[in-house]
């Protein structure tokens, strides 16, 4: 019984939230890894692209709430998500046309593209703050919990319940659907195969008659769509904070490099590893150990490896470890 309680506690505070967070990171990391694979540079503007897509979704959600459109018990944001995706795709294609294409034509050094992407990041950040302001926005409506703590306690007959928020389930379902669609696209369709060929060997792909501009455009469309979905889900699950998206870059890059650059499967794997380590390292295991230990005993401290203030340090440590031990990532990626 005590072991079950410990497990329930662990599931409630670590497993469930980390899974949702991992799914959000995975969607972001997939976009970064695709751009790494096709355009061959570290896209620092990806975080702000997530933020931009989320912002468009929020504005659309507010519009729908005003108009009385609702799909209760689901959050209205799901209905607004396509608008956010469309806005992000438009923005990504516009930045490519106005900024990145020039350097691609010049065959610039990837590091120049990375610097330019930092410029894009700040322009996007400025636009977002001008439109929606720098403050936190909450836009979740609909049912809050699918299973709340009290019901699950009663149903399981335990002291500890497992609460599952609706946003967490939605995150997981949407992420799974999007990822399956992406892998189907990459494996089965002509365009997807063209993309993979281009990523493997650019010159060979050109010789085979693959249009580079088309591949690049598709890459931006997919990356932007993934970013908008990831950003909206992240905002829905927590709250939308414009400032968080500059910090979330680090876990996303860590996940991308851990999985292997240009490797979609690796990105998903890396994202979940980063998410689970981050939540586990910053969780205080005191109560869990108290359940597992002898009756009436509890550890003295919190048994917390790192305070939550340092959760970004976890991604950094993972990043450093990967660079030291296996710079190619789990699934061998592109390393010059």
């Amino acid at each position, binding site marked *: 019984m005590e072991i079950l309680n410990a497990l329930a506690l662990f599931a409630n505070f670590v497993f469930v939230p980390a899974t949702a967070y991992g799914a959000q990171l995975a969607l972001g990391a997939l976009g970064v890894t695709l751009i790494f694979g096709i355009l061959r540079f570290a896209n620092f503007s990806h975080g702000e692209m997530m933020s931009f897509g989320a912002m468009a979704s929020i504005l659309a959600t507010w519009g729908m709430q005003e108009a009385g459109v609702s799909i209760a018990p689901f959050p209205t944001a799901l209905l607004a998500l396509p608008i956010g995706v469309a806005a992000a795709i438009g923005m990504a294609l516009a930045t490519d046309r106005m900024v990145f294409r020039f350097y691609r034509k010049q065959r610039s050094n990837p590091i120049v593209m990375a610097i330019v992407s930092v*410029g894009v990041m700040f322009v996007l950040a400025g636009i977002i703050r*001008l439109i929606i302001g720098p403050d936190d926005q909450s836009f979740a409506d609909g049912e809050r919990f699918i299973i709340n703590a009290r019901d699950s306690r009663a149903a399981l007959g335990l002291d500890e319940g497992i609460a599952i928020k609706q946003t967490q389930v939605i995150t997981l379902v949407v992420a799974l659907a999007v990822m399956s669609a992406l892998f189907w696209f990459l494996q089965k369709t002509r365009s997807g195969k063209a993309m993979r060929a281009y990523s493997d060997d650019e010159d060979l792909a050109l010789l085979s008659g693959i249009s580079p501009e088309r591949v690049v455009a598709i890459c931006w469309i997919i990356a932007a769509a993934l970013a908008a979905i990831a950003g909206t889900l992240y905002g829905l699950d927590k709250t939308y904070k414009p400032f968080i998206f500059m910090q979330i870059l680090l876990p996303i890059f860590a996940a991308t490099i851990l999985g292997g650059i240009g490797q979609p499967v690796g990105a998903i794997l890396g994202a979940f590893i980063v998410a689970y380590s981050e939540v586990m390292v910053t969780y205080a295991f005191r109560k869990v150990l108290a359940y597992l230990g002898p009756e009436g005993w509890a550890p003295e401290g919190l048994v917390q490896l790192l305070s939550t203030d340092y959760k970004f340090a976890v991604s950094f440590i993972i990043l450093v470890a990967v660079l030291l031990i296996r710079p190619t990532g789990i699934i061998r990626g592109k390393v010059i």
Partner: protein
Amino acid sequence: MNQRVLLLYGLMGLVLLFVGFFQSWNVAFGIFNLCVISAIMALGVNMQWGYAGLFNVGVMGFTALGGLAAVLISMPPVAAAWQVAGGDLALSVLALGGTVVAVVAARRAIPRPLKMPATFLILLIGYFVIGVFFGPATDKIEAIDPALSGYLGGLGLPVLVAWPVGALVAAGAGWFIGRIALGLRADYLAIATLGISEIIIAIIKYEEWLSRGVKNVTGIPRPVPYEVDLVQQDWFIGFANFFGASDLSEAASLFVKLCYALLFVAVLAVVMWFAERALRSPWGRMMRAIRDNREAAAAMGKDVKKRHLQTFVLGCAVCGLAGAMLTTLDGQLTPTSYIPLRYTFLIWVMVILGGSGNNWGAVLGGFVIWFLWVQAEPLGNWFMQAVTAPFPEGSQFADHLVSGAAYTRYLLMGGILLVVMRFAPRGLIPERSTGRAA
């Protein structure tokens, strides 16, 4: 130095004089001092990007380390804190040393497949052992008079000592990150520096026993006289009268700014002299060769990774020096003020606008961009007021735009970077072409 350089510097000087005559000399020197510090930071970044093509996204972290050094060197020690927690701190340091020794010993003794897990296990145990001593120590330190101190304090040395120390600390951090990330893909360094800067800021923000965290350290001792003392000195009153100053306190504040300006210009001159010498030396030629064609340079027997590490560490040291100077000028360390836009990105825009690879360009970029940065806020407000003027009083839309005016800086700086990179990638003062280089 050619005519273009003289012309551009002259123009910048004129603009500052203009501010002096039409706004006030205090404002002009306030801007000038920060311009000089920005120029030093830009020189540091130029060593990394301009000489070697290394993209450092963590300038903020290295500047903050310099700022932390200023606190740890110059603030008076808090005796009570050392008394209550000194023993525990010593034990924590011992535990740390023990862990390091154990790891080294274990890595020598244990065969290869078990090496990683054993290292990891020892590190984990060590971490908890250190925590046993360290946790109570920090609690005790933070409990001492939390409103006024609640931290260990510093060494109580003159603040000028902190400048080279800040450079050393930043160089150490740069060496650590460079060892890990250099020699791999170029983007890895960028991502790794992004990470370390976030972590340095987090440490300064949350480790209250070290830096008082978000409670800020104020009243860092100055290397120059205080205004309140000056106005009572006879020689200063005579000095002020000689120049016909009408307001004594204003004259004192101007005098303090002048002292700072002299100090900063001296540092800038020294750094500039070294930077120029380095750039013109065979070492500088080698760095450019590595930057322009890595493979060729490696084929000529140059150790690319080692040279990159060298120049990266030097650049970080200069950023740390500038960070210590900045904290000295401010007289306080406010961890929340460290934001990437101001401390990383702005410096980048300076280097790229000024002319990457050219030290004179980087310095000019520091002056121009800092001036724009200071003046952008009033301009942004004015612009937003003008745009929203046609809207009725109390219109929500207009209020929203006015409240967002501060963020026009993001747009402005991002825009400058993109435009310069696209249309004038060589910047205001381009790098001297290799043919004519001395």
